[in-house]
């Protein structure tokens, strides 16, 4: 993987490593989807979101909803790297009695706005937050990250109508378009194309980007809204499993967790000093 010279690069590397270790330890699924959104989360948390880890409930904070709740490991990793809680808590991922559930869960975890996991919930809730922000003249923005398979859920399209009708230009949707859903490719299961045209037809301002190019991601997130009075959708073309060659574009990594050997290989590919990582986070 080419390392780009961008402040998000180190952040992305760190959260990929955390997520790999978390799913390895817990034998959990969804590493492919975590790696798919790693660069998006890195830019959001390293460069874009106006949040205060010391004051997670700050009224004027930007709201971020991980609507594809199965990307939980990497979401918790991003919150830890941003300083919402110590990184050693990540090792409790999916453990009995832990606050870090296998889908993003608001067990009072600082920085988690909404429990998700059932798809199609994040955007309607984001619309409510954005509407409150508009009517109360608050400066915050609301970010909702959706998966491509999630767009099969009709509730998104109810919300898409709503956001445009109410001119919620403080609302920004990012679609993790890795083209692989739970049991097949998007094209095979329920084709979304022409996706950008659909959103345009719903009166959203649309930009398509490479979801692994930090400069493109940052530029899109910072320059939104692209049109006053229009909600924004950024269609991020991504690769499921991005960053670990043997996981890329393979449906199986929606389910499998890596063996110890695979974890070592994956960390090595990321350029992580394995012994140091193990010493720091496992021993």
């Amino acid at each position: 993987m080419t390392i780009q010279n961008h402040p998000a690069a180190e952040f992305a590397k760190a959260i990929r490593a955390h997520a790999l270790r978390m799913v390895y330890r817990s034998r959990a699924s969804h590493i492919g989807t975590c790696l798919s959104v790693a660069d998006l989360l890195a830019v959001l948390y390293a460069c874009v979101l106006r949040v205060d880890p010391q004051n997670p409930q700050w009224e004027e904070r930007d709201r971020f909803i991980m609507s594809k709740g199965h990307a939980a490991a990497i979401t918790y990793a991003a919150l830890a790297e941003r300083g919402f809680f110590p990184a050693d808590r990540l090792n409790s991922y999916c453990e009995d009695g832990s606050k870090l559930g296998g889908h993003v869960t608001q067990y009072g975890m600082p920085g988690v706005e909404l429990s998700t996991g059932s798809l199609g919930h994040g955007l309607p809730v984001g619309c409510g937050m954005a509407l409150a922000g508009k009517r109360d003249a608050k400066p915050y923005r609301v970010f909702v990250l959706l998966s491509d398979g999630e767009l099969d859920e009709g509730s998104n399209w109810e919300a898409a109508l709503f956001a445009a009708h109410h001119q919620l230009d403080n609302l920004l949707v990012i679609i993790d378009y890795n083209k692989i859903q739970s049991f097949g490719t998007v094209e095979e299961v329920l084709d979304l194309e022409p996706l950008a045209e659909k959103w345009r037809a719903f009166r959203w301002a649309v930009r398509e980007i490479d979801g692994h190019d930090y400069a493109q991601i940052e530029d899109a997130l910072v320059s939104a809204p692209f049109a006053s009075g229009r909600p924004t959708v950024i269609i991020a073309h991504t690769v499921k499993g991005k960053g670990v060659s043997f996981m890329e574009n393979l449906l199986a990594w929606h389910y499998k967790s890596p063996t110890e050997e695979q974890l070592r290989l994956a960390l090595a590919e990321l350029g992580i000093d394995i012994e140091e990582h193990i010493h720091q986070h496992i021993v």
Partner: protein
Amino acid sequence: MRNTFINTLCELAEEEERIWLLTGDLGFSVLEQFVDRFPNRYVNVGVAEQNMTGVAAGLAMSGKIVFTYSIANFPTFRCLEQIRNDVCYHQLDVKIVAVGGGLAYGSAGYTHHAIEDLAVMRAMPNMKVAAPGDPFEAREVTRAIAREQGPCYLRLGKAGEPNVHQRPPAFSIGRAIPVREGFDAAVLSTGGMLQTAVAAAEICARRGGSVAVYSVPWIKPLDVELIRELAQRFALLVTVEEARSSGGLGGAVAELVAETQAPKARLIRIGLEDSDICDVLHHSVFSQESARAVLRFDSQGIADRVLEALR
């Protein structure tokens, strides 16, 4: 009751500016006064109840007290997972208001009946469930749920129900309200069945049965203390509801009585059973009044069933 609801909500919204009202494109000739007075705290979200409930959750997470409003089956069943995950799991200040509960939309057809609502809403975590018996109760319940932190379900009838109580009754969350005294049997009525339950008790009285009537506006939390006491005091307890008795008031009382040590009372549950629904309501159209008569839960039918049980 729906007019009492909106009048009360407007009074509350005057004092509490966090109160919002969302509708799923229903409420013609009911909601206008709220829309006119508080346009900035009102949204017609369109015919989209999943989104309505999600938006309500997002607003509540931003500090609002949000009422969602529609005909009874729409803001409940259509968006049940949004209610459970977004509203109940997050313990949000969202108050789901259903008009036309039960068979109020009788001849409109079974798509508009809401008879599973009490059972389903009662199963939702953190949810309080209320079905007021007359406009006095509707006013008190509306005031209570606006004050009470967390999710609430309010089941209303339509319009034009009379007051059954002589004056506003003493009221608190989770408490049943005594309406009529008696010593042979106690009838527990919820929602808009109250007037019918009182009429049934009067018929029983003319035929030699002495029947007490209690209004149960709160199905959750249930008035556990009172119902346990009634189960010890009376030989017969009767629940009455225009809803599936499984899981509704009948179910709630049955669970409680079954767990009460050596209850004196036998329990009969008057409400809708699978057979009523599948063999009757799914075959022909009936007005609310006719359906009650056909299914023997009009005042005559209830009186007959109570007296049969007392024999």
